């Protein structure tokens, strides 16, 4: 054995998420929770609507987390959090950070109305969407976060998802909330920093975390982090922040944008795509990337 030195830990060692949880092997959503809790610390209350995490946490009378959770109705994550925050303040707790923790279905689809209401009022909560790009908990059905071209059990190969992923950041930016950030579990330090930053801001903060799902994407469990990095490096899911709906900051600058083909090829959900389809998807990614760059550069 080599000479002993300090192990290099880029994140705090304390864990608020325990082993024994019910996530699939290589689950990205689980890592998202682990990192966000490391950043927020123990003084947190979570509102979790129907999503993978309502299973991952474990059944009654157990929980995998050392922070309190309100398992709330599917479409209510955001406003449940507003309610908890208001209630806590009225009973004298002004410190606890209240977090809505929802999947993409609970955010992009069924929960968007309540989320829009919360954001419009600028209620003092952090909203985290961990995005695995379909209804995974119910068995891989398409959501409006499912990307163009993807197979799901409701978008079979013969009629794959033929509409682009909803631009949630643009919708949230239109609400002029103080803070919006995209993050990926492939970049934990970036996610950690953004969560810390969000914690210090008052008002509605929206974190959109890219969280691969090996079960639903038909990818290898060990590729979860690789996918979460590739998606950033090929600009399919760029990492950026938006302040007050106006100030765009790009966090991971790309010297050389990687092609999306390599990323698509290691996921079974894209296996059916032809070269031509991939080429047109590449064009879309390029266009979106240019749009983002112009927003970043317009000061």
């Amino acid at each position, binding site marked *: 054995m080599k000479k002993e030195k300090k192990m290099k830990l880029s994140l705090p060692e304390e864990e608020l998420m325990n082993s024994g949880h019910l996530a699939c092997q290589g689950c990205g959503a689980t890592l998202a929770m682990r990192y966000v809790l490391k950043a927020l610390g123990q003084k*947190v209350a979570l509102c979790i609507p129907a999503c993978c995490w309502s299973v991952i946490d474990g059944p009654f009378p157990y929980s995998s987390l050392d922070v309190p959770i309100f398992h709330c109705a599917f479409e*209510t994550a955001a406003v449940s*959090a507003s309610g*908890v*925050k208001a209630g*806590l303040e009225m*009973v004298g707790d002004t410190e606890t950070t209240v977090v809505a923790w929802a999947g993409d279905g609970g955010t992009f689809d069924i929960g968007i*109305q309540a989320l829009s209401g919360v954001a419009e009022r600028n209620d003092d909560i952090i909203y985290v969407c961990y995005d695995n790009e379909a209804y995974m908990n119910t068995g891989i059905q398409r959501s409006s976060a499912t990307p163009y071209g993807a197979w799901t059990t409701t978008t079979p190969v013969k009629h794959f998802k033929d509409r682009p992923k909803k631009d949630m950041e643009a919708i949230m930016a239109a609400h002029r909330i103080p803070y919006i950030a995209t993050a990926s579990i492939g970049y934990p330090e970036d996610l950690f920093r953004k969560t810390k930053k969000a914690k210090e801001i008052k008002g509605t903060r929206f974190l959109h975390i890219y969280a691969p799902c090996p079960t639903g994407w038909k990818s290898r469990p060990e590729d979860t982090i690789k996918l979460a990095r590739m998606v950033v490096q090929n600009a399919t899911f760029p990492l950026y922040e938006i302040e007050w709906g106006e100030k765009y900051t790009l966090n991971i600058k790309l010297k050389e944008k990687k092609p999306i083909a390599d990323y698509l090829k290691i996921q079974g959900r894209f296996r059916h795509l032809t070269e031509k389809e991939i080429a047109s998807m590449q064009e879309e990614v390029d266009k979106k990337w240019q749009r983002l760059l112009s927003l970043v550069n317009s000061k």
Partner: protein
Amino acid sequence: MKKVIMGNHALSYGAMLGRAQVISAYPITPQTQVVELLSEMCADKTLDAKFIKVESEHSAMAACLGASLAGARTFTATSSQGLTLMHELLHWASGGRLPVVMGNINRAMAPGWSIWSDQNDSLSQRDTGWIQFYCCSNQEVLDTVIQAFKVSEKLLIPSMVVLDAFSLSHTYEVVDVPEQEKVDAYLPPFKPQIKITPDEPHAFGGLTSPEHYFELRYKLQKDMEKAPALIEETGKEYEKMFGRYLGLVDEYCCDDADIILITSGTVGSTARVAAEELRQEGIRAGNLRIKAFRPFPFETVRNIVKGAEKIAVVDRNISYGHHGMFYEEVKSALYGHNDSLPVFGFIAGLGGRDITPSTFKEITNYALKKKKPEEEIIWIGVKR
């Protein structure tokens, strides 16, 4: 202090005197004045509460649930379409044992759009595990909100205080608004033993297997069964302090009545006028107004109707393919106890059609003419 206020404001005053801490609501006719007055009370600090002005009734209830779980006293008010939009979360409130108190203005369900009174909105929430009170005056509305907080918080079961559209919600009556100190003495602050807090982290409402779900529902029912006694007890306590008894039912001339008209809500006062007039005509009529629909006061109803010869239940609601909903309950209360007592089930006043003293006279005459009901449902006032 006596004030002339509308029924909707009686709800607001009830919430204010009950010191609701978090209010969340969405406007709907005929509920709007409830939340308008509460908004003003919160704005001018007459009431120290947070008012979350949400984008739907569904979110209103969701916010109340979150706030209640955090240990705050919560209040909301709605009506009709709004109440039914909340339906999913009504189950959440009772199953989560969150003692939210809600005012509901009875308004008929669309289509067609109706803003007028009937009870199908609240009665179709029958099985959601909420205590339901049907009120007959603005005074009763105000008093019941305060009592409801007390009952709900003791049992950890939510309560709905129900009043009719317009005939109560928009009608001005003299109401004795009790003093805050006296209400404080009656209703202590809400201090739940278990709540959402990082100091003692629990996960609430997680996945529950068949191994445990059954017991949770058993316990909810067992606590619901404690409600009738608790409503009577807190009602008597209220009477001691404020001079007004708040019970499960309200009876009028039932002791010697040959026929008892069973009603709920505002039409109770109409039934009394009719009963009075009938008595002048030599017909001994009485009125039993059922206030608590859930839990249903089976025993109380049985005892009161014991001596009657006939019962006429008047429902401003219908369970399609079945009966009026109070009629069902009354029949099931009597089953095996008083099977020979004829119970007539009338449907009247749906969608705000007037129910007048002459409606009750028509009902009484019908029931007196027949030995027993020949029809499952007797419709009153349908143009045929």
